[in-house]
């Protein structure tokens, strides 16, 4: 069966919804919701430009955007650039590893009927339900023994472990929807299995890869618990951790805190907005099922 594309639906609006009035109601719901969604975020950004009294007395006022003192104090009094770099590095390496490992596992599970494929899938699924925080002490001991405590690799290891289950879940579902004939065609063309994965499968998985990436990007970029425990050297701290520490010294200066929060949120928000098209299309086109 063909699926209803959003476009085609558009022509049916009036028919299905009947009166314009009902569309109007839905439109109002949407607008109200969007305001509710964006308002707090706008306030957060605004507050970064304000001093405490301004925040408390005029929380909604448009600030003086030239007043960058809060941002400047975040910038100058922390290793912001360093933290940012660390975060980018840790997140980047983690996401990359998650995607590579996740695709490998998903491909094996989805394509080969080997013994225990579904058992292995279940094993990955179990990881979804487990709070890894619980295992902080054994993890710590493990990393100590591996000699990667106080390095970014400890974080990468945890993040990869955290991200794999959902990635395998998403990717397995997606790969199962891809026609096998494509791989057969490549096999006939003389491509090796590795080649098939690289040249045929990966490009096709792009929507699912993007979804998995964003899906993991958010918690990994935002995490501050694991770095707290595994990273003690200031030069290795990640952005949320570095900023949380910094905010510990400014507990009562909301302006500075919001400047920090805004700066911490900015990279991922910008990435989301840039990729939102592909991400939302990917999600709604059934790459996630």
């Amino acid at each position, binding site marked *: 069966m063909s699926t209803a594309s959003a476009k085609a639906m558009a022509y049916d609006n009036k028919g299905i919804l009947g009166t314009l009035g009902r569309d109007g109601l839905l439109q109002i719901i949407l607008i109200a919701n969007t305001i509710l969604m964006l308002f707090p975020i706008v306030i957060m950004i605004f507050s970064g430009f304000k001093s*405490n*009294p301004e925040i408390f007395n005029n929380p909604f006022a448009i600030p003086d955007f030239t007043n960058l003192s809060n941002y400047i104090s975040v910038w100058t009094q922390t290793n912001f650039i360093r933290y940012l770099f660390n975060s980018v590095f840790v997140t980047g390496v983690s996401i990359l590893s998650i995607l590579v490992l996740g695709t490998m596992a998903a491909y094996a599970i989805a394509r080969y009927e080997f013994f225990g494929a579904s058992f292995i899938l279940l094993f990955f699924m179990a990881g979804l339900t487990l709070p890894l925080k619980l295992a*902080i*002490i054994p993890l*710590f*001991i493990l990393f*100590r023994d591996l000699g990667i*405590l106080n390095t970014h690799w400890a974080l990468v290891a945890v993040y990869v472990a955290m991200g794999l289950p959902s990635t395998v879940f998403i990717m397995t579902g997606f790969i199962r929807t891809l026609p096998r004939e494509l791989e057969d065609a490549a096999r006939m063309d003389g491509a090796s299995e590795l080649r098939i994965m690289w040249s045929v499968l990966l490009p096709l998985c792009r929507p699912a890869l993007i979804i998995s990436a964003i899906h993991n990007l958010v918690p990994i970029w935002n995490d501050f618990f694991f770095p*707290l*425990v595994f990273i*003690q050297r*200031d030069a290795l701290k990640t952005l949320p951790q570095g900023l*949380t*520490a910094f905010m*510990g*010294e400014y*507990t*009562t200066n909301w302006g500075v805190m919001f400047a920090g929060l805004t700066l911490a949120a900015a990279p991922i928000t910008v990435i989301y907005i840039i990729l939102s098209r592909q991400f939302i299309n990917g999600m709604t086109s059934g790459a996630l099922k």
Partner: protein
Amino acid sequence: QEISFWSWRQEDRAQYQAIIDAFQEQNPGITVNFEAFEAANYNTILSTALAGDSGPDVMMVRAHGAFETVAGGGYLMALNDENVPGLMDLPEPALAAQTLRADGQIYAVPFASQTMLVIYNKDIFDDLGLEEPQTWDDLLAVSEAIQGAGLYAFANGTAEAWQNETIVSALGSSIIGQDFYEDLMAGEADFTDERFVAALEALVEIKDYFPDGFVGLDYPSAQQIFASGMAGMFAGGSFEIANFRSQNPDLNLGVFPAPVANEGDQHLVGLFFDGGYAGNAQTEHPEAVATFLTYLASQEFGQVFANTLGNISPIPGVVFESALLQEISELNQNSIPYIMLVHFRYQEPSGSVLLQSEVQRMMAGESTPQAAAQAVTDGIATYYEPFQN
């Protein structure tokens, strides 16, 4: 020799660095690396690190019950006059706070005592022509006057559980009284005793002078309200002072102990020890650690500590530059311990947890002082034999 030193005092990073610099100058060859962590997660980080045998060489540990978790695992270096000369000169209650009850060994150099009392804004008092209240009635009158002037009498909120315990001690110590404390220790009274209940009743009376919605007011906001001069008083601990000062250096602060119920009763403050500096039993540089700990037990350090960090050092002979600290240290002469922290944080359910949530409930108007006292007593009675009858 490099040793690491962990602390939960992120806000004191600069001061500690200065202290460490001074120490390194005196002891060339020893490098101390200071790391500070968010206080709320310090426990988790330290426990994990110690359990993973990767703890720091020197660390701040909490006192009393929380101290025992760390010390009980055998992770800390036992301290005595030999490895830390001068340790035994510290006052007995301070050392007791860092002693593991199981083996009677001291495991940390205590660094500060904290006093629970009322801090007030002198300027507001002066403007309104108010005096430090002596009795509970005085306090009500003063509060009324401040509120009448359009300010908050107290800045306190009770949204965070632990704030509820602080107000009991800061406002109620004199009502609770030395007698009750002694009876309690002797096992002859429990918290349903009317002297303790009276203190809770007093709190119910005074909550009308807390800000609107104080049940939803968190600690930093409460501090802020006081620091910004919107409130006349703050029931809290001596540890607040540094914070107030840094938020508003112009603030003119005064302190007074908890008011008494009847004129002539003894004024008391609540007292406890904050924590100590401990060495790691498994450190690779025990001598360096001992050297550093010795320094942290020295009067020289105590003096710097008191002056730059604005804390009350228990080290004998320390004099306080700040008149306010000097005043507090004098108030400490008449004190009862901050009871729950000092005596009932060794087992679950801890007295603090019970008291905090019961007072929070009471302050929200959903429970009575009697019921609160009863619940606290019952909770502690699950493991504390003197209450079990």
